[in-house]
């Protein structure tokens, strides 16, 4: 286990030496929807191989923050650098950058008109220009990784929520991303299906994937996260390694949030 000091700068230094390289740099990022400021001067540096869990009350800007990382939302101020490329409003080759960043959504967002294997191969064939055979081999490999290879010919509507979310993870992994973003991947699931998805995510973390996970699964955060980020009102209020975050939260807002979550 890594233990990151609460101090962000010190934490960065130690992570960088251990893991080598910064996967995502978010510097002084702000964003507005009209007059409403949804992100307030956010700073976050994610080292290669680091596992970040982001939590916070609904509406605090968690989704907006991670959606800025693959530019599904555009930030208006500050700098975001992903895998060494700065994302600006006019950045060329956004699709190429996005291929390196996998995203898993709360609502799965599988393509309903395509079966499981075609969901996985679409971007491989069209964006990565792989031959269909090669793409299907990659797809089967990743469906096996999420333990669902036998459903390859089914359509999304024929699968349970947990199965759909695992397919969505496999679909993202097919692109061989360097970073994975998860936006409340288990929030839309029936309780009995949460574990199968978290298990897949835990294994991914064990394999060394750089991950930013928005989730309120605190068991997962304790077990997997290198760092837990708490957001409220569009800003990062507190961040610490899980042991410290859960046992010794500094900020009042963090304590309030955690006590609500645990009761």
């Amino acid at each position: 286990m890594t233990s990151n000091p609460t101090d962000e700068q010190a934490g960065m230094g130690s992570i960088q030496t251990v893991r080598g390289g910064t996967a995502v740099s978010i510097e002084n990022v702000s964003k507005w929807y009209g007059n409403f400021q949804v992100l307030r001067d956010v700073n976050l540096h994610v080292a290669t191989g680091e596992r970040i869990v982001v939590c916070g009350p609904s509406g605090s800007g968690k989704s907006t923050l991670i959606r800025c990382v693959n530019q599904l939302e555009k930030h208006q101020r500050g700098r975001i650098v992903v895998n060494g490329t700065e994302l600006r409003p006019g950045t060329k080759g956004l699709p190429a950058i996005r291929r390196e960043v996998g995203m898993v959504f709360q609502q799965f967002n599988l393509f309903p008109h395509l079966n499981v294997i075609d969901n996985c191969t679409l971007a491989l064939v069209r964006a990565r220009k792989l031959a269909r055979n090669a793409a299907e081999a990659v797809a089967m490999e990743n469906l096996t990784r999420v333990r669902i290879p036998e459903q390859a010919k089914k359509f999304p509507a024929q699968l349970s929520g947990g199965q759909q979310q695992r397919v969505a993870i496999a679909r993202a992994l097919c692109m061989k991303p360097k970073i994975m973003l998860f936006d409340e991947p288990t929030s839309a699931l029936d309780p009995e299906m949460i574990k199968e998805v978290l298990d897949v995510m835990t294994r991914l973390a064990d394999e060394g994937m750089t991950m930013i996970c928005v989730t309120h699964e605190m068991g997962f955060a304790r077990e997997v996260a290198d760092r837990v980020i708490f957001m409220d009102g569009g800003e990062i209020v507190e961040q610490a390694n899980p042991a410290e975050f859960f046992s010794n939260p500094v900020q009042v807002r963090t304590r309030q949030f955690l006590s609500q979550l645990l009761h």
Partner: protein
Amino acid sequence: MSFDFAFALKIVPRVLEGIGNTLVVAILSFMGASALGFLWEIARRSNRHVRPVMQFVVDAIRSTPVLAQLYFLFYVLPYYGVVLPALVVGVFGLSFYYSGYLSEVFKAGIDLVPRGQGEAAQSLGLSRIHTVIFVIAPQMLRNVAAPLGAYSVSILKATPYLAVLAVPEMLGSAFDVASETYRYAEPMFVAGILFLCLALIAVTLVNWLERYLGVTTPPH
């Protein structure tokens, strides 16, 4: 002058002479209107500066009589050196006019596709055009099958407008018979029945398409 069934039957082959043009014009115009309408809608969504321009174009297309558009194309284009066969002008005119309506159909159809679908495609690194072709359009098609079917019948019924360009079609054939025989009831009746048959065929095709696309309940 009473309605003469025997006469009506006898003139069916004469009226049918125009059916070829009617079908060609209706099918080509439907395809043209769909292609143009989809193009308008994609342009309208492409960026926020283009949107109001395209909205105006689409509204203008729909707010002008189709006859005015046809006359304009047929009589004004030659002034600028563009001389096209009447059939081509007719197909282009109907395509253009109905593209205004079909772009609204496509708009509604795309609006019904959940936002997350495009986002998922983009997050996989698919380009915009691939996202439209492989993710949005197939899902949109399920939503628009029924209204597209209705417009295919509208376009079919609009083909007689091409009479103003002297394009021979089914209603025109019926008129020819009428003016030769001074009997109007039977030729118009026969033409009406034949249009009805074509419309029924179109409706059947649409139903079949809907089943093929897996539309079981109307989308919300």
